[in-house]
């Protein structure tokens, strides 16, 4: 019996993401305002019928900017997240699988080093030495963010290695990489995906922090993270500027979270005991 309840979250998540994607891709047709056009007489307007989410400090429509900004944000953060996930899972699996070997030791030391590393130093070096392009932003983010996934994966693998199924597979002479990908990967994917879907939110927010160094999107291109960073100045006067991007980040994180948990159930075929 595959539990019938769980795919619902997957379906909900995909539907939600689908709608978000429609809104973002359709932004040029859905929004009546130019996201870049400044109008000093309309600055910091409260939400109204014409401007459902109000206007920002330059008199630009927040809703238009939110929808237009989604594309940059989603592409960069999803790309960054999937690369971190990929690296994290592989490193974690290998380290866990060969956990008494030199590979494991080296990988874990690298992680220790990176954990203590001032993120800003790395980003600053990348920005100033290699230029402020999108790829460099990705490199800066990915090189630091994969750590937590790797460590989590490794700890799951370590634990799972003691399970009977894996012991059985080992005894039966299964190849190590087969065990890794058929037995251990599915176990690690659950917690890691859940962590990942939550990290998406903070990833979006931290990408915007890099605009301080000139990495990331530069004005006037709308982008959720930088919209939030810019909105901070008027936090007490016009908090509604933050509403649009925050809401959309929330919905996106929720969608990914639902999908993540749906996938988790997909990978974990064990029936879940109900209490």
């Amino acid at each position: 019996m595959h539990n019938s309840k769980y795919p619902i979250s997957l379906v909900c998540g995909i539907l939600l993401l689908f709608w978000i994607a429609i809104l973002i891709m359709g932004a040029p047709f859905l929004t009546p305002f130019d996201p870049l056009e400044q109008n000093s007489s309309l600055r910091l307007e409260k939400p109204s019928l014409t401007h459902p989410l109000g206007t920002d400090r330059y008199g630009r429509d927040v809703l238009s900017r939110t929808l237009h900004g989604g594309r940059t944000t989603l592409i960069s953060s999803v790309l960054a997240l999937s690369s971190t996930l990929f690296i994290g899972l592989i490193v974690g699996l290998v380290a866990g699988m060969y956990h008494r070997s030199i590979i494991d030791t080296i990988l874990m030391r690298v992680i220790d080093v990176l954990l203590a590393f001032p993120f800003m130093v790395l980003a600053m070096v990348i920005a100033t030495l290699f230029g402020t392009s999108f790829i460099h932003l990705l490199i800066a983010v990915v090189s630091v963010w994969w750590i937590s996934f790797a460590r989590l994966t490794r700890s799951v693998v370590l634990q799972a290695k003691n399970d009977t199924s894996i012991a059985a597979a080992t005894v039966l002479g299964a190849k190590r990489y087969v065990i890794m990908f058929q037995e251990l990967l599915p176990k690690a994917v659950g917690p890691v995906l859940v962590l990942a879907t939550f990290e998406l939110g903070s990833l979006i927010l931290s990408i915007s922090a890099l605009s301080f160094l000139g990495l990331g999107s530069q004005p006037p291109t709308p982008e959720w993270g930088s919209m939030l960073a810019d909105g901070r100045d008027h936090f007490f006067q016009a908090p509604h500027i933050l509403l649009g991007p925050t809401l959309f980040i929330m919905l996106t994180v929720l969608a990914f979270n639902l999908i993540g948990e749906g996938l988790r159930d997909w990978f974990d075929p064990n029936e879940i005991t109900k209490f």
Partner: protein
Amino acid sequence: MYKIILQKLLQAFITLFCATLVLFILTHLAPGDPVKLRLGLPTEVAMSNTKVYEDRVNELRSQLGLDQTIFVQYVRWVKQLLRFELGNSIHTGRSVSSEIAARLPATILLSIPALLIQIVLGLLFGTISALKAGKTYDSVIRIICVSLASTPAFVLGLFLLWLFAVTFNVYEISSEASLKRMWLPSILLGLLAAPQLIRIVRANMLSEFGQIYVLAALSRGFGTKRVVKHALRNALLPVITVVAISFTTLISGAVVIESIFSWPGIGKYALDSVILHDYPVIQGYAFIMVTLVIFINLFVDLVYFLIDPRIRRKGETGIEDYA
């Protein structure tokens, strides 16, 4: 046993060496001159006598040894370290160890309650969420978690500060790290870190509930509480990893929260030093952080060993396998 300890120490040394070397090279590669930054930007009258300026820059640079190659400088730094010295800040001229010692306690003061709050909320709501998976409770917790995870820290920070400092007038704003100013930022840090843990606990619990032993135990008439207790214990291993990571993140300093609550912690200090290219400070900070991370990891290993009976029972493996 001695062998394990020796091995651990050796590993720690190698880690420290690599970390500091890489950082040393990277910080020195980054453009921007700490000496010029220290001399200050002229915004008053132009220091039009540029010859004197250049001379002074070069003089200071050779005084600080910055005119030598990176490797000579690194060796000098290591030698200094062997005398248990972290050197002096380029920007303030004071000793790095005393500056860090002045700020690290403030950060730890904030981190420990924050971590406790995170653990309590994480275990509590994670377990509830798993038990009520798919029901309203679970959904409500999920929504709250998602909202917390996707709100920028400054929104909550500024809002809470305004609420307690201005509206209720019960919170003092100063630049000191005192016990009476600790509660608000640590609650906030705990709250911000909790969602991650809640969801991890939930996911692990659910995957434990999928194990045969849970069903078997239930069908044999064991009480739910007892079963959940066992499941929780088994779910703890990955949870400890997450907690350890958040602890290391917390003690390395939360820049946004520290600056909003004007908390004299290590995070803002480190960021300022990065901006000022204050090499000795960045090095000292990284050195201390790597050391702390190594210690925390050792501690985690120990906890793993104690908590997971499956690891303990096997006996064939030492602690080092779970590092």
